[in-house]
């Protein structure tokens, strides 16, 4: 894509999300979502092939449906309250419709079916934007309407998302699908804590975005999309292979890595609100996620998969890809746990 066109499209994506986050008028929220949707379509089809077109079509159809539901909720709220302001007082029916619409946009279960299909069909760079930047706008609206969301609905979606994210990623060998199911599970964790502590949801989102960005950048660095090709990275970039080990364990939420922070905080917050079964269930289903992350680590860094003699020693050659943000992202993805006491400023 030509740089000027790419710049305009990216600016539209960014401004769409910014409009959603900063506006207090429901119509502008909807407009922001639509701008974001229409601008992300050419980014999803950056690598022009029939699969990418199918993925972009599926994404457009699901997101357009969600926008339609959102608009329906906005109109119902307008009929009952007589005003367009984004406020915490929502009509219950409008709240349910908006929650459902935002769940479709986020890929929360049971509206998660599009996430692995779309992520698998697009390139790694487009998948990076889809699984990180595109989550910000819907979560910001959920944050704003969190006091009026039906708690049963949200908790049910959270539990389903965490379970489906864990079970669904178990038998995947395609890395993009693994990241898609990881995204579904993380969205489940975020929605679980949203009603009790929206600040923890923001923390989880931030750390999730950092870790996902790092993972995608590592995969782009190695140009790998399958578990088998990732298992051969010891030959290409031995240092990156060891970093993938740390990153996968961080994604799985193992201490003392950064990924443990949101899980710890969320479980602590839920138990403070006298919920025992919910954090137990979340922690146990997180083990499923950890299992497939560890399986990736096993094939990549802990074992040397058989290769044939004609494979060249690629580590001798310098990689020409420039990933200037990779080192700080790796540090942030793995070494933020000691900064946890600073979270007290959020209180």
């Amino acid at each position, binding site marked *: 894509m030509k740089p000027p066109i790419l710049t305009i499209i990216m600016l539209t994506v960014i401004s769409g999300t910014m409009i959603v986050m900063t506006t207090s008028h429901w119509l502008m929220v909807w407009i922001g979502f639509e701008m974001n949707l229409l601008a992300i379509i050419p980014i999803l089809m950056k690598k*022009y092939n029939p699969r990418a077109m199918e993925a972009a079509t599926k994404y457009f159809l699901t997101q357009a449906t969600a926008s339609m539901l959102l608009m329906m909720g906005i109109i119902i709220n307008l009929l009952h309250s007589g005003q367009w302001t984004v406020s915490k007082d929502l009509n219950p029916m409008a709240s349910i419709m908006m929650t459902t619409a935002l769940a479709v946009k986020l890929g929360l279960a049971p509206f998660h079916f599009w996430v692995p299909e779309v992520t*698998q069909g697009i390139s790694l760079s487009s998948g990076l934007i889809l699984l990180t930047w595109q989550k910000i706008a819907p979560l910001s609206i959920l944050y704003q309407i969190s006091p009026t969301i039906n708690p049963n609905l949200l908790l049910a979606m959270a539990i389903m998302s965490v379970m489906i994210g864990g079970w669904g990623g*178990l038998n995947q060998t395609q890395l993009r699908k693994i990241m898609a199911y990881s995204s579904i599970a993380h969205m489940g964790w975020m929605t679980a804590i949203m009603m009790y502590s929206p600040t923890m949801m923001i923390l989880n989102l931030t750390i999730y975005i950092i870790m996902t960005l790092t993972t995608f950048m590592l995969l782009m660095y190695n140009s790998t999309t399958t578990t088998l090709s990732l298992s051969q990275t010891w030959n290409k970039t031995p240092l990156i292979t060891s970093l993938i080990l740390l990153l996968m364990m961080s994604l799985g939420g193992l201490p003392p890595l950064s990924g443990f922070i949101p899980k710890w905080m969320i479980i602590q917050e839920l138990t403070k609100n006298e919920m025992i079964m919910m954090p137990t269930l979340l922690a146990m289903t997180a083990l499923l996620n950890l299992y497939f992350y560890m399986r990736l680590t096993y094939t990549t860094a802990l074992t040397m998969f058989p290769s044939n003699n004609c494979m060249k020693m690629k580590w001798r050659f310098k990689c020409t890809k420039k990933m200037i943000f990779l080192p700080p992202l790796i540090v942030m993805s793995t070494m933020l746990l000691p900064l946890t006491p600073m979270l007290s400023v959020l209180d």
Partner: protein
Amino acid sequence: MALVHKFLSSAYIFRKCLKPSVSSCPFLGNRFADYCSSSLQKPVAAPGKTSSQRNTEGDLQGHHQREVALDITSPEEKPEVSFDKAIKDEIKNHCRRLKDDIVNYCIGPEGRPLHEVLLEQAKVVWQFRGKEDLDKWMVTSDKTIGGRSEVFLKMGKNNQSALLYGTLSSEAPKDGESGHSGYCAMISRIPRGPFERKRSYDWSQFNTLYLRVRGDGRPWMVNIRQDTDIIQRKDQMYSYFMFTRGGPYWQEVKIPFSKFFFSNQGRIRDAQYQLLLDKISSVGFTLADKVDGPFFLEIDFIGVFADPAHTEEFAYENSPELNPRLFK
């Protein structure tokens, strides 16, 4: 769907017997063609049936055997007619398949441990050792559009191969709109899970298609289709040629997936795309060389393997003049 079927047939033939052909229904007329004709036209030399003729192997090239339509049942066997029982059996069958699916999911991808799947370098996807292997394929020809070609599929000698044979006729159907005709094809059925859920093959760790065939010297085309949910993409496929030698010796054909070219609605497109191997839906063989006469193709097995010496990713490049939007 079940109610429509009941309305059409007025009596559901038990699963072990054959379903009546939809194309013979007067209400639907010519709308439904016998695409899934293989299971209806396969020759069955059942010894108990007086209405069937014994098939003789004989000369593969010239001897056309009379095939028996399988919807003619012997007078000794009366099919059990029970719609409700058949529906219950169908549901039980699908529930059993769902249970097997869940158990296989717990084992690993494709029902096997992950390390087996990752370390696999060669895999036989289809082989022909029994009648049940033929059920995974369907044959079609230009008869569906009014042509005169005929194609049949049966087990070969000693049940060690499948024999695809028939007669190609390039005489165009006299319907006032078809100018060309003359094709025969054998297409694998889309793999289905419980409750007829569509599945696909993941061949992303392999890079070459391997076929053990014995032909009659005719050029065939190997077609691969990807799994898709969008209707327009059902006409898209990736093809490559397979030239058979003829003669008594088996031929091992290796076609790298990078060589497959893209076509849509039967036309090779200027814009070429790489065949992505993570969602393969079906493989097919087509004969359309405009040479009238009999043909045969014997297939032992079809497999995929990872050729470490083959490093090409895609054999074709796109031209900025023909497809400027690919270079924007």
